């Protein structure tokens, strides 16, 4: 593969990863506060549908993104309110919402199927877009992609370098202790769910208005919610590592296209489906760093020890266990 093709491929990876980054980073924020929003897969589709519809009827892409974000935030708020305030199972509520949102999206979106609609226009960054290599990979995209790139450091900064982030992580670790210090853990969790949900909704619109423009059944965003949920776990609830996972997944999807040309005898479906099991395999490899055997092996090798510890992370301790009050 020559240099020209490599940059095109990497550019496609960066663009394709955008929606997954929105969803996975959003879920990272939510889970860091100790709440699991399992409705991702459904909310993304509903967001995609709502975003496309709003953009179509108003003619404004921005309105589409706003509508999608609102949908994601509302669904997440339902999970938070029932889970944290009403003491219902977050997993059960989230799961039911996944299915409900998906069906709702297909049902309400039926009239929009295959209707041509607006989409986000490309916006090369003046000056930077012409840089050799980097220019094409990073700076000849649309605003959605730029936002997804910026989101990662912003999320990291907010979570690890601000008072708010400290409160979020503290609540996810030990809600009772946060309560003892005068912070209401339920409000923090609700807020994080809404912020996370906003991002999940944006992920939906990023599909239907940018990456896979239009609405249909299937839309193309199906399954992405589950991938995002898995990325959060294996990315150790850390925005940067989660984003690395998202780019990896995008890479697996993108390389299918040139590979298909190279190996014409293999059915095309293989290339479409392969990223999913490959992703699981990669995630499993990362997960191996937690095993005792690897630990012992790395114990005697300084570089391996550092690598293993960089890859490893533990869940927020109170994940899925909100403060119970009598």
């Amino acid at each position, binding site marked *: 593969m020559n240099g020209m093709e490599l940059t095109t491929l990497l550019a496609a990876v960066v663009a394709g990863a955008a929606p997954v980054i929105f969803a996975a980073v959003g879920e990272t924020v939510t889970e860091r506060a100790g709440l699991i929003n399992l409705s991702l897969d459904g909310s993304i589709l509903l967001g995609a549908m709502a975003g496309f519809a709003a953009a179509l009827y108003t003619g404004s892409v921005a309105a589409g993104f706003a509508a999608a974000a609102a949908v994601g935030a509302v669904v997440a708020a339902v999970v938070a309110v029932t889970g944290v305030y009403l003491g219902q199972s977050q997993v059960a509520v989230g799961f039911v919402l996944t299915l409900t949102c998906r069906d709702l999206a297909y049902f309400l979106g039926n009239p929009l199927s295959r209707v041509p609609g607006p989409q986000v226009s490309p916006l090369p960054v003046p000056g930077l877009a012409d840089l050799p290599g980097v220019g094409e990979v990073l700076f000849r995209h649309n605003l959605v992609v730029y936002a997804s790139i910026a989101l990662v450091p912003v999320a990291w900064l907010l979570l690890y370098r601000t008072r708010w982030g*400290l*409160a979020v*992580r*503290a609540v996810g*670790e*030990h809600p*009772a*202790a*946060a*309560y*003892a*210090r*005068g*912070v*209401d853990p339920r409000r923090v969790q609700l807020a994080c769910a809404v912020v996370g949900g906003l991002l999940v909704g944006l992920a939906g619109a990023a599909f239907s208005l940018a990456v896979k423009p239009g609405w249909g059944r299937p839309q193309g965003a199906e399954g992405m919610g589950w991938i995002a949920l898995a990325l959060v776990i294996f990315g150790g609830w850390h925005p940067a590592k989660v984003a690395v996972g998202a780019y990896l997944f995008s890479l697996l999807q993108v390389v299918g296209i040139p590979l298909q040309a190279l190996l014409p005898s293999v059915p095309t479906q293989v290339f479409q489906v392969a990223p999913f099991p490959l992703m699981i395999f990669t995630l499993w490899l990362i997960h191996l760093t937690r095993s*005792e055997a690897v*630990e*012992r092996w790395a*114990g005697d090798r300084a570089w391996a020890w550092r690598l293993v510890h960089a890859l490893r992370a*533990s869940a*927020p*301790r109170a994940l899925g266990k909100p403060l119970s009050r*009598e």
Partner: protein
Amino acid sequence: MHIQLVDIHKRFGAVHANRGISLSVGAGTIHGVLGENGAGKSTLMKIVAGFLPKTSGEIRLDGEAVSYRGPADATRRGIGMLYQDPLDFPALTVLENFRFGLETAGRDPRALLADLAGRFGFDLPPDRVVERLTVGERQQLEILRLVARNVRTLILDEPTTGISATQKDVLFAALRRLADEGRSVILVSHKLEDVQVLCDRVTVLREGRVAGEAERPLRTNDLLGLMFGTVPHPPPRCENPAGTPVLRLDGVSAPGGRAGLRDCTVAIRRGEVVGLAGVEGSGQGVFLRVAAGMVRPRRGRVLFEDAPLGRRAAAGRVAFLPTDRLGEGLVPGLTVREHFVLRLPRVPFLLDRATAGPDARAGIDRLSIRGTPGTPVEALSGGNQQRLLLALLPERPAVLLLENPTRGLDLESAHGVWRELQRYCDAGTALVFSSPELDEILLAADRILVFHNGRMVLDTPASRTTPDELARAIAGLGTGAAA
């Protein structure tokens, strides 16, 4: 600050934990609250700190009746509490724990922390993750945080469980300073010695009521009488001639805890009672887990009756009781009876109320556990959880490994546990136990191993050592063997 509690009641459903408690704590004094397990001490203190709402009664601060909506209100009025189950954030760093929820009025939290730590003589690396601190250091951090919040009343709920004698001295010195600065301190404990050296006045609680009050000088027998009705007697110690070696560690190094375990060689003999001393996390915990076959050594061998100890090899012959009862020992959510079901040699496919029912009732009777076969284990008090763990032990283990077996138990419950352990010892079981309490070790053990920083630095018969020598070894001084 002058605190008055008037006729405080607290109900948890059917449990009436505080039944009309009145007490008064003067400004600038250290006030002790004593009582057996389950007397209602923690509940009362959580009410004062705003963590729990009271069912009825009145709290007066400097004569003014107050009502809180949550801990934030109590904090605003200058009340801070060190909780019995630490309410901190193990995965966050020292500095993050320190600054969370703290108004520093523009001061750099890092500098403030360093400042306060220096003032109290605490050594707390700001960027270390809190789970890597000892229990004592975690308490020190909480105390600094409360002082930084400028508390006028400091409540400490069982601050001396799980800390070493040295750490206790540091803590008590710090508390005296706070009292001298005019702050009030409420010290909750079931340990008489603590209260006797530190407190000006003591209130004793029993079954949710005030059983009595006492002032300096605080006499042991008076306090014991108020706490338990009678003065409990320590159980007789088990005198067994040590038999043949049953468990051997041969050059064992293993990871875990703060320091891991490094190059440990020792043989445990039948019928022996071995006490493991040392600052918490110096290797005792890893030692017990390696000996139990739960942690595989990185180097060296563990031999049980001269055969390598496999994960299953010594099943039923080597038993381990961890200190974290609900975390490692019992399954929260399951009832007492269900724990006995899990212990059956062959669990039947269909389970009903009768399965293991007789076992459970027999166990409850034998160890006088306050509970029924249907009680979920998390609803048992700490002492009763410990008794249940004992009831679940295999009939005749060859080696019984116990991590801090009387942690958090009042004197009477602790004696009850030791009485039960003597039974095993009389039957020839080797007992190996760790304890932060030198007194307990000297009382029960016939051989003492001292750990410092992952290494075993002293191995001595109990009859041929002194508290002084042990304290020096624990601190890593002298004895030549220290690295």
